[in-house]
């Protein structure tokens, strides 16, 4: 992850109703929940600010109706935010003209949809080549690129099939190939796997991780599934009633949930695979034994056996083998099972 900011949202509001702009003006840009309710407006996204770094995977979570899709759709300008500012690679996209927006979508953004959004009348090949066709790239070139993408997602040999002849997982692979065909900088995925059954879903997550290791894109990803989020995310943002209630690494979220709502999300998380040893260690004492130390960046699951079977605190070292702290049985139990 680099420090370069890819997307930056400042005080973004998206209000649905008869006259959102007038409504926002009347309330000085900061309507209260009561004002929204009493005037019959829906605050789908409320005062959301955050940055996405280049190459980062940001996962957005929240209950149904919490505004996740609306937020992503504001960034892609499928919806126009009511107020606020969104910069994409340093350019304000809210003032972008339709033409610029189309250019942006043609070259910089790719999106995968929950229900795939494939064109039923086109073959796999022609679906994947569609974004290229739209740009006016000639047939041979676009088919070549599309074929590569189809190979990449593992659908080689099915180029001539139609969407209805494919399983759900295969259809979503087509959706993924299509979104990647233009080699976008940022990849948006709105619950890409939630229409698939659980087995296929895991398979597709692995596929996704494989692709990301290959491509290293900036990703904004929506999911309902916290476990999925922890497998994939650099950072997780949790939304509630249109507001972003916490944005942090999975580890922080598990260790220090901002409120009960977030804690509820994190409750069933596989803590052993999320929390690192570093996060629960304390400064090393002088007399800590130095045999069989554990590494700070390891997840606690990997270090658990060593720590729990030792009758003394275990030394924590960094990659160079230098001691950075120690961890004892008590801290390990607490971290593994939560604050009991």
């Amino acid at each position, binding site marked *: 992850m680099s420090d370069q900011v890819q997307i930056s949202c400042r005080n973004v509001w998206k209000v649905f109703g008869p006259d959102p702009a007038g409504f926002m003006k009347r309330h000085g840009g900061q309507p209260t929940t009561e004002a929204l309710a009493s005037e019959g407006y829906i605050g789908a996204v409320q005062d959301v600010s955050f940055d996405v770094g280049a190459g980062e995977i940001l996962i957005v979570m929240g209950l149904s109706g919490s505004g996740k899709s609306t937020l992503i*759709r504001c960034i*892609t300008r*499928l919806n126009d935010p009511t107020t606020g500012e969104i910069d994409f690679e340093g350019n304000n996209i809210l003032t972008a003209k339709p033409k610029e927006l*189309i*250019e942006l*979508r*043609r*070259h910089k*953004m*790719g*999106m995968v*949809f*929950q*229900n*795939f*959004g*494939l*064109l*039923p*009348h*086109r*073959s796999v090949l022609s679906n994947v080549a*569609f*974004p290229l*066709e*739209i*740009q006016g790239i000639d047939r041979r070139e676009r088919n070549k690129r599309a074929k590569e993408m189809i190979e990449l997602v593992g659908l080689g040999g099915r180029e*001539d*099939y*139609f969407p*209805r*002849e494919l399983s759900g997982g295969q259809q979503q692979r087509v*959706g993924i190939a*299509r*979104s990647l065909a*233009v080699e976008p900088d940022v990849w*948006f995925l709105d619950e890409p796997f939630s229409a698939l059954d659980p087995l296929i879903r895991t398979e597709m997550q692995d596929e996704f991780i494989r692709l990301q290791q290959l491509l290293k894109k900036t990703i904004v990803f929506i999911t309902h599934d916290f476990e999925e989020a922890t497998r994939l995310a650099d950072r997780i943002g949790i939304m509630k009633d249109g507001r972003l209630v916490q944005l942090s690494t999975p580890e922080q979220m598990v260790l220090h949930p901002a409120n009960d709502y977030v804690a509820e999300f994190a409750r069933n998380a596989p803590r052993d695979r999320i929390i690192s040893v570093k996060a629960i260690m304390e400064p090393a004492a002088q007399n800590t034994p130095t045999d069989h130390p554990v590494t700070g960046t390891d997840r606690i699951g990997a270090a658990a056996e060593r720590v729990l079977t030792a009758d003394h605190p275990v030394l924590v070292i960094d990659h160079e083998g230098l001691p950075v702290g120690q961890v004892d049985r008590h801290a390990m139990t607490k971290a593994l099972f939560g604050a009991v």
Partner: protein
Amino acid sequence: MDIAHTTDEARPWSGRALLALPLWQFFVVIAGGILLTTLWEGFARWPDDLVIPMKEWITRFFEWLGKEAAIGSYSFKDFTRAISDLLSYPLEWTEALLYRGIKPLGLPPIPWVAVVLGTAILGHWIGGWRLALFVGASMLYLSIFGLWKDSMRTLSIVLVAVPIAAAIGLFLGIRVTRSKRAAAIITPMFDLMQATPHMAYLVPVVVLFGFGQVPAMLATVIFAMPPMARCAILGIQTVPQDVIESGRMSGCTPRQLLWKVQLPTSKKTLMLGLNQVVMQTLAMVVIASLVGASGLGQKLLFSLQQLRLGAAVEQGLAIVLIAVVLDRLTQAYAYRETIHYSATTSFFQRHKHLLLFLFILIVTFIAANFHKELAILPKKMTFTLGREIDFAVREFSKNAYDYIGPVRDFITVSILLPIRDFYLWLPWPVLVGCIAVAGYRLGGFPVMTLTASLMLAIMLFGFWEPAMLTIYLVFSAVVICILIGVPIGVLASRSERIAKVTMTICDTLQTFPSFIYLIPVIMLFKVGDLSNIIAILAYATVPAVRYTYLGLKRVPEVLKEAAIANGCTPRQKFWKVEMPFAIPEIMLGVNQTIMMALAMTAITALIGSRDLGQEIYRALPTADTGRGLLAGLGIAAIGIIADRLISAWATKKKKNLGIE
């Protein structure tokens, strides 16, 4: 929804529900209306000298348009002539190809053998062997029974009118989805157009464009266009959100989105629109024989007028077959899935249908040069059962008419005529008042004003009597339609097997152009009010059956099971649970039946009546646009009144039942 509520809600047709309507308002209106007639004659019968001479105005306006209107040096006449010329080109070419031959080049038309086989190949390509066999055999019938030229005449107009109507419809449909303002103008226009019977379109067209093939085609295009627009709107608006957004995210411009995403995705709906355009076109072309369009329709009209029933049956069958062929082909095409070929499939394999057709075309073309009978079957090689059918009908009439005649006369004299006299007696304040009260109770102020003022307009423009006769015919027929249709629908909903047969029959009946239904009616009942009603019955019963069936089918399983669990006998379950639930749907079927019945009254004018249909029919030869157009709009107005009242009622009822 909970069961107790439904059963309690109970039978809308029972006394209790009727009492829920404030009947007293109706009583007041009826009593008041009758009282008024004692005060002033005009309340019983609107005086002729108070009629607004809208008829004359419109007639004069169209005469002016046709003769004098001009912008600069271009008269309106030049404009209509330009349109005629423009339309006549493609028509002449199609006619040349199908039956005339290209005279200057000395080329014969496409040989009938090639057309028959070509249609069969098309059928196979779209729908497999069964379809191929059916369409091939149907086309063969046209040739063998010596109806080839007339069929090709009719088909030429269809083939040219369909693409034009479809293109205009598509364009307008797209406009509606793109602009609120266009929607506000176009949508109500379509509503009106759809309620106006075919024949009413013919009058202004005749005035502006004269008689013949081209005016017929023009009327056809105007008439057949709305369904395409409707389907385009529906199709575009129902493209899944995900698909549209994926298109937008791919970087589509609005135009690309329309042509590459929205329209192709709604192919099925668009094709069904095309199917309707084709069917409407055919129905209209047949009727357009009244304005001199030659072809099957005209032959059928002559046969009917001369009571040559044998010929009429053969021509009618030809029309029916063409209708069914066109319907099956377009429907099958709509539901056809694109198939993918593997990369190894040869060019030959991929295009086998087209290649085969081209081959047949060339071979028959060459062969037709030596054997003329391959081009068009000479008369002596054709076949007819006309005389036999005539004989059979005469024999049948001779024997059966002794029975049918008296029955007909009895029904007419002792039932129909009293009802008719009642409608004619009905003072207008009573009817208008009742419509207003019903409108207000069901749909509030807007529905009341619309329905009542439409009825008033009919009177003020001087169409009260023919309108009342129309209402009498339509409503007598509709009552019988319901008495026949609803039980059949109920029966169909009880058994899958019956349902399948019934629905197939319904589908087929609905593809027949309305004109056709006159043939058996004239054969059996000759002319008169009863014949009119029976023709309407034959045409308009289908929706009553269909909607009853669908309504009952849609009753949720849980509801039925709960009824059984509550200890309902089958009879109780049906009357207390299923029927109340299905009633709104059934009423929409009744609505549809009324619309079709109204459309049919315009056709039954051909076998004599005194209603609005007859007004249109009479206006045709005299080119009395005002009379014809207003009478047509009068029929539309009656349709709209019925539609608004029934829809308002059904909506209310559905809401009460918690459906949708």
